[in-house]
């Protein structure tokens, strides 16, 4: 039986409790709570990306594609057919999952850079389609979700705090999904694929299937984030929802700055980066256009150069179960202790 409360788990628990209580302590309509909601939403997006980027080490630069599919699917279903975004959210997840399968078939043989390029092109394709197929998608103008007051059944609330709690719940769900994946059988296989694909195959791992499953789950969760984002902001357009720098890169960057492939990484990364960007925006955007984005780029470069393993690298490593290692040492010939 392992200890239930490692420092990491305690920290996570404290984080979620503190986050849940935050709306009681800040202005429920204020800017601060909106920023906090964005932190949580970006943490959830980065965690979704982390499933593919961190666990399977498939560097996707196209997750904005899944995000946008989620936003468009739920919003179009609502605007055209009056279907509640709560349902549309899952429809979006299915659409994104399907897109992930379609994208995977041709691209999974690709490694590293090639995969990054192909996924980048995927999101760009969607952006171009959304821009040009104006009859259906609203084109470059984007889509607005009409304000309806408080209609919980239609994912519409008056108070920012309601959205905030929904987003927090989403983050918890995504983190749970990540944890279950990472620590379960699939997690073993994904790490094996990440570290040596040929050796994984020879050891009996169906590498294609493992990557496909991870990719579909990641895409579906990202799409759900997209729906939530659309409901929260009431408006989006193709260039922002399929944005390479604004979304695809940012999701990945949060996970990387926090710690690739770790459970806490995306949360740490979002807690660090989003407020930093907000502050930079607030103070710098009046100074010169582009300054805050410039700072964003510099931070990304600095993060890669200073600590490519992310903030989590400074977190105390979880102890392995040394206790179990002291089981009776059966005749240890060639292996002379570690």
């Amino acid at each position, binding site marked *: 039986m392992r200890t239930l409360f490692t420092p990491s788990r305690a920290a996570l628990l404290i984080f979620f409790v503190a986050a849940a209580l935050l709306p009681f302590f800040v202005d429920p309509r204020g800017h601060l709570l909106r920023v906090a909601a964005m932190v949580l939403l970006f943490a959830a997006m980065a965690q979704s990306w982390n499933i593919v980027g961190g666990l399977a080490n498939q560097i996707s630069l196209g997750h904005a594609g899944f995000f946008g599919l989620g936003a468009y699917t739920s919003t179009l279903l609502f605007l055209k057919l009056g279907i509640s975004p709560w349902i549309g959210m899952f429809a979006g997840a299915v659409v994104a999952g399907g897109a992930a399968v379609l994208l995977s078939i041709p691209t999974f043989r690709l490694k590293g850079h090639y995969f990054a*390029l192909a996924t980048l092109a995927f999101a760009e394709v969607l952006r171009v389609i959304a821009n040009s197929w104006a009859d259906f998608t609203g084109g470059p103008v984007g889509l607005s979700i009409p304000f309806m007051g408080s209609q919980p059944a239609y994912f519409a609330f008056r108070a920012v705090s309601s959205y905030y709690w929904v987003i927090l719940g989403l983050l918890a769900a995504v983190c749970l999904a990540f944890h279950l994946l990472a620590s379960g059988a699939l997690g073993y296989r994904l790490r094996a694929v990440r570290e040596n694909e040929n050796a994984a195959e020879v050891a009996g791992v169906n590498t294609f299937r493992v990557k496909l499953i991870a990719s579909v789950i990641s895409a579906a969760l990202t799409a759900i984030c997209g729906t939530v984002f659309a409901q929260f902001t009431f408006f989006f357009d193709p260039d922002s929802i399929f944005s390479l720098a604004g979304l695809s890169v940012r999701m990945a960057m949060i996970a*990387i700055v926090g710690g690739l492939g770790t459970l806490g990484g995306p949360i740490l990364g979002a807690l660090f980066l989003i407020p930093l960007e907000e502050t930079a925006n607030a103070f710098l955007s009046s100074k010169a256009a582009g300054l805050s*984005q410039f700072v964003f780029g510099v931070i990304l470069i600095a993060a*890669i150069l200073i600590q490519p393993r992310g903030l989590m690298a400074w977190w105390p490593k979880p102890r392995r179960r040394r206790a179990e290692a002291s089981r009776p040492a059966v005749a240890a010939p060639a292996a002379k202790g570690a």
Partner: protein
Amino acid sequence: MLQALIDGILLGGVYGVIATGLSLVFGVLGVVNFAHAEFLMLGMYVAWFAWRWLGLDPLLGSVLSFVIVFAVGYVVQRTLIERVLKAPPAAQVFLTVGLLIAIENAALMVFGSEFRSVSVPYQVQGYRLGDIFIGAPYLYAFAAAVILAAALWLFLERSWTGRAIRAVAQDAMAATLVGVDTKRTYGLAFGLGVALTAFGGAVILPYITVSPTVGGQFVVLMFTVVVLGGLGSVAGALAGGIMVGVVQSMSTLIFPIQLQNLCLFVIFIAVLALRPQGLIKGA
């Protein structure tokens, strides 16, 4: 039809030179430079300022673009890229993506967001051959691209530095053993790669306006060209450039203008999926 073909070839020659730089960087350093199109933008600005302040025609200013961006590239490689050469692809990808964001926004701060264009006497002139009309700026840009490609070929074949670059691309370890300073060579190759692209940016200035976001228009195009030709293959990139130019100008005959890029993307993904080693190389 024939008109579209010729337009395509003229465009494509320039695309070829632009993408050659990207391919060279990958071939020698093994790094996919996502920020590459930003150096195209820098090259365009250098040429624009050379035109504005010195009255230089962009075709001449392109030499200045080449030199200045070469220096910038050399420094960027030695201070930043050098440090991730042995890092996993994720670190390389995100370092260059960070560079992309930083350069684009630095340009926005320094140059402002307005679109700038040059005016040259031959801008609307052209040559007529029967039914075919050849725009002068396109023709001159193509000619400049061809000259530069030839110079590049000579340089890589004949000069000691060029041969050192090729040696390092083939086997860095062996090159070190025969006395090549690999670090310096990496810097030179990167500088040369971005300078070629900057040159390409400068010569198209007479028919394309420059703004800080112009790189974005070229990213996928550039990668499509390079992937068609085989990542790392310089000759392949030139051929790939012409193919893309032709596809692009032919597709305007069939598709509305916004879908032109879509066509490219589809080719891009298809080629990546079916022949990641490139269509031209070894085809």
